């Protein structure tokens, strides 16, 4: 009885928080879900898409009971086994990612509420009424003000605490439950990201309800280095937007170059199209070591931890603008601006300044004063040649390269003046700088690479935020029927394995009339390659969320708009209620929305949580080969696993035998393999014969193009009836199907997992 009262009280509290009395939709079964609330859904996913663990380490080293050997079935002193330990590490990674975005959201909200007040309306423009699909689906709250967003982020903080608690010594003992928690944390990540980006759009007046955003200059050569240069690195736009305001207000914007690396660059260019994008995270150290930045302003997330040390090497100045990374610097937030400027210019000091206004004033003034005293030139070919000649081919650089590059050969080539091959190699450099510190000859390898780094300037479209409701109305039917063959989202870091891969993949799928959406560093590198006409994919393809469109959604936190678009299809197109109705939304996306995430260069914990959040919502994610180091994938075995679904129209369980989508988190070894997997991961059981035929046409033709001919060996699993066979391959496919004894099967009218596992959601909830 006491327990029932407690549950009722908690539910009442939640209903109050989400303003349940406002009847914009009925409140679904899981408002502000806690750890157990979506566990049954997770377990159903994990039944088909089983965790695949690749431990780095034989041991658990997390407490002083150990180190504990977990090999050959051994358990640690607390009782944990190797699989559960991997799942625990994955949960920690997802929590790091989730908390990075949630903390970003919390900070930016605080900043914007201070500026605009908590009652500032959430308004994303004429064409976006469904402003917060993730927030509404997960929490049940329709955020109308910045204050409402604060309620949401406080819920996320609370859940993070519970989840982190579970990783403490001696608690969770099931890898499946740890995975369920990782899925929970990662779903919350998309909520946190959505809070952050909605707040930014509203608070900074970023573009919204528009597709055709401005084209931005990108590349280190886009920066006029004869001017003072302020470089912004990180993710949080509080500082960068304040800096732009300061420069505008003081008539300095034409006198100073503002450029960014990583997501801050994307954020800043949503605020001002005059700002420049240097490039992705993988170019951070390289660019800093050119010394072209006079002042470096750091905020949070993917920023190097040795920024002041690196800045000292090239006589740049650092201002740490957020408490996440203060580098041991003196906190000058309360100090007078002239004194800070004096010490930075004359004594070459770096400071932490946590007030964006003051940090901006200082940055501008220091940038105007120090450039004449600094050398800002690229290394010459002759200098590089002389340095490269010191290489003894000891291979020490190659041994530490995380991307396994043949640097010794590149040094030899450069020393002989042959730059073509090193240019290709530098495209694959992930910019960690480990080679430099390993070189016994002390060759500054990254600096030498300046001679082979492209001096090209590229065009990238500024991030546009949420997909418009009007666009969803146009594409909802063709996506769910399959006649738009899929939505491919290139997200996350761009570091591995080759910087040009993403541009190639975007081009291939946009040309084939998939909808291509991009965020973060992946959005940048997609623009870092020109076709024979000198155009980047942003210049070559339209910016609409429609067949053949290439859409830069924005920074990392804009990833929420990609999952949001999938939810919008279920809500706007299929008219399924989304309020606190996560399971129904995820089931719809898994079975009917042909979307696939591609995190080709992913390396960060944020990428882990972004991807895992997509997985809980039913969106498969394809990763690059190095991502096996995340240590966990979600793989099915197509011939053995459970592909039964409920046909909601007939109310009967059907064994489809069709592995769609085949995996939820998958590593492709090569770009070529990825090209073939992406169309397959966009296949859904809901496809009409026409849609399936279009999807199989791409699957077969890409297979022939990249796998050396023939037909895909699993093709028969995806052909339901003769009408599914693409016209152009009809004869060949029919012959193959006949040869293997294929039998036709009926497509499922309304496929759903609801009804195939214990759930509070009734079957009627998925019928629209």
């Amino acid at each position, binding site marked *: 009885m006491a327990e029932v009262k407690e549950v009722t009280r908690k539910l009442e509290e939640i209903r109050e928080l989400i303003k349940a009395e406002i009847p914009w939709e009925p409140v679904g079964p899981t408002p502000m879900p806690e750890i157990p609330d979506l566990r049954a859904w997770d377990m159903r996913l994990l039944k088909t898409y089983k965790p*695949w*663990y*690749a*431990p*780095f*380490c*034989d*041991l658990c080293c997390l407490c002083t009971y150990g180190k504990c*050997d*977990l*090999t*050959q*079935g051994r358990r640690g002193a607390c009782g944990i086994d*190797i*699989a559960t330990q991997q799942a625990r590490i994955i949960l920690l990674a997802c929590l790091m990612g989730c908390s990075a975005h949630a903390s970003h959201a919390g900070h930016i909200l605080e900043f914007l509420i201070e500026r605009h007040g908590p009652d500032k309306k959430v308004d994303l423009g004429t064409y976006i009424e469904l402003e917060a699909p993730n927030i509404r689906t997960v929490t049940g709250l329709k955020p109308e003000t910045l204050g409402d967003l604060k309620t949401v982020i406080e819920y996320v903080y609370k859940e993070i605490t519970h989840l982190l608690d579970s990783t403490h010594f001696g608690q969770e003992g099931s890898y499946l439950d740890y995975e369920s928690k990782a899925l929970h944390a990662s779903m919350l990540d998309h909520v946190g990201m959505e809070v952050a980006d909605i707040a930014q759009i509203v608070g900074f007046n970023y573009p919204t309800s528009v597709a055709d955003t401005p084209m931005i200059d990108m590349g280190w050569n886009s920066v006029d280095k004869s001017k003072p240069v302020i470089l912004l690195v990180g993710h949080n736009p509080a500082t960068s937007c304040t800096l732009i305001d300061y420069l505008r207000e003081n008539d300095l914007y034409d006198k100073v170059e503002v450029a960014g690396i990583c997501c801050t660059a994307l954020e800043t260019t949503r605020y001002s199209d005059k700002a420049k994008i240097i490039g992705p995270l993988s170019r951070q150290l390289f660019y800093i070591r050119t010394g072209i930045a006079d002042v470096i302003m750091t905020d949070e997330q993917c920023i190097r931890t040795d920024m002041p040390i690196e800045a000292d090497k090239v006589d740049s100045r650092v201002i740490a603008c957020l408490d996440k990374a203060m580098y041991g610097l003196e906190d000058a937030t309360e100090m007078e601006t002239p004194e800070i400027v004096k010490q930075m210019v004359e004594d070459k000091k770096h400071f932490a300044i946590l007030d964006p206004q003051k940090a901006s004033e200082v940055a501008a003034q220091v940038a105007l004063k120090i450039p004449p005293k600094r050398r800002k030139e690229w290394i010459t070919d002759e200098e590089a040649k002389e340095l490269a000649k010191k290489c003894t081919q000891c291979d020490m650089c*190659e*041994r*530490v*390269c*995380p991307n*396994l590059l043949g640097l010794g050969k590149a040094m030899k080539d450069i020393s002989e003046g042959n730059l073509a091959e090193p240019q290709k190699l530098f495209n694959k450099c992930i910019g960690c700088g480990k080679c430099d510190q390993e070189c016994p000859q002390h060759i500054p390898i990254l600096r030498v690479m300046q001679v082979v780094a492209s001096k090209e300037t590229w065009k990238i479209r500024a991030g546009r935020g949420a997909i418009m409701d009007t666009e969803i109305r146009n594409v909802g039917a063709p996506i769910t029927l399959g006649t738009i063959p899929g939505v491919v989202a290139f997200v996350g870091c761009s570091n591995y*394995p080759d910087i040009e891969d993403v541009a190639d993949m975007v081009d291939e799928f946009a040309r084939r009339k998939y909808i291509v959406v991009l965020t973060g560093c992946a959005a940048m590198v997609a623009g870092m390659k020109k076709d024979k006409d000198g155009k980047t994919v942003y210049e070559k393809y339209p910016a609409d969320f429609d067949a053949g469109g290439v859409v830069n959604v924005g920074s990392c936190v804009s990833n929420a708009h990609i999952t949001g678009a999938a939810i919008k299809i279920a809500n706007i197109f299929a008219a399924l209620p989304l309020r606190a109705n996560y399971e129904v939304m995820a089931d719809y996306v898994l079975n009917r929305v042909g979307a696939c995430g591609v995190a080709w260069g992913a390396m960060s914990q944020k990428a882990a949580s972004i991807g895992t959040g997509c997985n809980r919502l039913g969106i498969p994610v394809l990763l690059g*080969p*190095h991502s*096996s*180091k995340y*240590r966990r*994938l979600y*793989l099915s*075995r197509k011939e053995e696993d459970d592909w039964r679904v409920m046909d909601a129209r007939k109310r009967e369980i059907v064994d489809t035998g069709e592995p769609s989508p085949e995996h939820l988190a*998958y*590593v*492709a*070894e*090569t770009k*070529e*393999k990825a090209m073939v*997997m992406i169309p397959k991961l966009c296949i859904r059981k809901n496809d009409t014969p026409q849609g399936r035929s279009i999807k199989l046409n791409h699957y077969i033709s890409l297979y022939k193009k*990249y*796998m*050396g*001919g*023939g037909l895909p*060996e699993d093709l028969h699993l995806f052909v339901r009836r003769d009408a599914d066979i693409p016209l152009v391959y009809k004869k060949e496919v029919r012959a193959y199907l006949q040869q293997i004894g294929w039998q036709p099967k009926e497509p499922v009218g309304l496929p759903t997992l609801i009804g195939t596992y214990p759930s509070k959601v009734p079957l009627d909830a998925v019928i629209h």
Partner: protein
Amino acid sequence: MSSVIPLHRVNVLTGIKSARLIEDASQYANLIQKAKRPLFVLGPLLSEWSLDGKLLIEYALEIAKIANIPICATAHVKGKMVELGVKPDSIYDAVEIVNALKDAEWKGVKKEGNHDLVIFFGIRSDLEEQCLSVLKHFAPHLKTMTLCKYYFPHANYSLPNFRKDEQWKAFLENLIDSLKKGE
């Protein structure tokens, strides 16, 4: 635990159970010949790497033919194999074949039962090491072996870090000779 450090530092083992390093090709041949159901997992680097102008895929196919080892082709290596007149027995990507192999009840690529020795060759070293880790921890029913020129700690049997390609070439040629002798 071996004191051998793998060539690529990303593959350094943190733990206690590492591969037995074997430099003698005849020992490798014995292990292969003793296996009842070996499997060759061939990766895309085999169509890029060569020794004195001979592609590594050619070495691999020769070994497979002599020892009658079925082949699983990963990524896009199938194209080159077909070009050389060989149809792989199965096509899976690296993580997929590993996923199947860790199930002791899996019937294997020949439908004759799961494999007892899996030989990896030509997969990017960080991915290969992670795949070997999966099998080391979750497939006690089989042994793993590598033919790439670096040391892989998570394997059961590994080559050393060959400093020179000539050493690697000599090993592969000796292995082929040893297998021929044992035919």
